[in-house]
């Protein structure tokens, strides 16, 4: 198979050849940039983050609005020849999980570990009313109310608002049209991160256990849905420890 360019899809932090790879999947409306900023505090890994079309330097590209499209596109370019760990936050957790399931279906190397953050187990029935059909203002306001993390200036600048609403809508459409399809649990160790003050409770985080055959570790940090913005040093130390422990276990196996 001809190697495909990954540059637009996976934005790399500092190059660290030979280090375990960490692939990060952003939340709805999120950007690879936030993870790239983590790279310096995670010297033991070579970090890359997924940048979906319609944002950042991919602003002019058509957005993707279904899970199947996103997963197919990512799996197509994701490099899986060397050992790697996958981390996804919020919608990114769900995308990461579905990407790993697709990697298994297509016989590719699976990650040494999956780390999901701020998202309930994928089989959980969603109870929040859908927002992806709302007008731009209401869409942005509703997402800001539910999860925070959106600067208020977005609503006061018409061009910025239209730009953000376009990819935010696409991401929420991915989430809100998603249907979990039963499949064998993944043979992958799983770590679940969350914020103690997030609306997603510990039970919903623990429910991820039924989706893997390997051990699950749940770790909750002080803070809300974006707990890692409140105390990045603590979270990044924990993340580095999880990846390092996984890599050591991998070598010992």
């Amino acid at each position, binding site marked *: 198979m001809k190697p495909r360019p990954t540059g637009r899809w996976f934005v790399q932090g500092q190059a660290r050849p030979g280090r375990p790879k960490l692939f990060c999947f952003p939340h709805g409306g999120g*950007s690879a940039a936030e993870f790239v*900023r983590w790279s310096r505090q995670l010297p033991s890994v070579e970090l890359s983050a997924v940048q979906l079309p319609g944002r*950042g*330097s991919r602003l002019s590209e058509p957005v993707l609005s279904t899970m199947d499209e996103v997963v197919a596109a990512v799996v197509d370019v994701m490099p899986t020849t060397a050992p790697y760990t996958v981390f996804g936050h919020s919608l990114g957790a769900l995308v990461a999980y579905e990407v790993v399931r697709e990697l298994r279906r297509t016989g590719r190397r699976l990650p040494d570990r999956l780390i999901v953050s701020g998202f309930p187990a994928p089989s959980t029935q969603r109870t929040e009313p859908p927002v992806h059909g709302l007008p731009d203002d209401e869409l942005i306001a509703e997402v800001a109310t539910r999860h925070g993390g959106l*600067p208020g200036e977005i609503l006061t*600048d018409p061009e*910025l608002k239209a*730009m953000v609403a376009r990819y935010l809508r696409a991401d929420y459409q991915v989430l809100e049209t998603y249907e979990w399809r039963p499949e064998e649990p993944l043979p992958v160790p799983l770590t679940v991160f969350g914020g103690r003050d997030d609306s997603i409770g510990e039970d919903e985080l623990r429910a991820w256990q039924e989706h893997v055959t390997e051990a699950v570790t749940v770790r909750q940090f002080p803070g809300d849905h974006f707990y890692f913005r409140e105390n990045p040093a603590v979270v990044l130390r924990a993340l580095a420890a999880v990846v390092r422990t996984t890599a050591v276990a991998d070598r010992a196996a």
Partner: protein
Amino acid sequence: MNAHEEDLRAWLTTFVADVLDIGPEEVDPGAPWESLGVDSAMTLVLVADLSVVLGRTVQPIEVLSNPTIDAVVEHLVTFEAVGGERS
């Protein structure tokens, strides 16, 4: 290339170096914003600071629609050369 252009490039490079906590020499002015760790929220901080430096209101879209430091510098220089019309 004029002095003003170089000043703008240096200013943007320093901004990004501060964000990433790295040396200015490590910042690639031809790299896309996301690979420099600059997202739309950070862009808002950048345009607020840039507006003070330039003495005019810089719109977020002027940065977001120009994907690199080099592209933004070129846009800003052109913007001033044509007297404030959007380039």
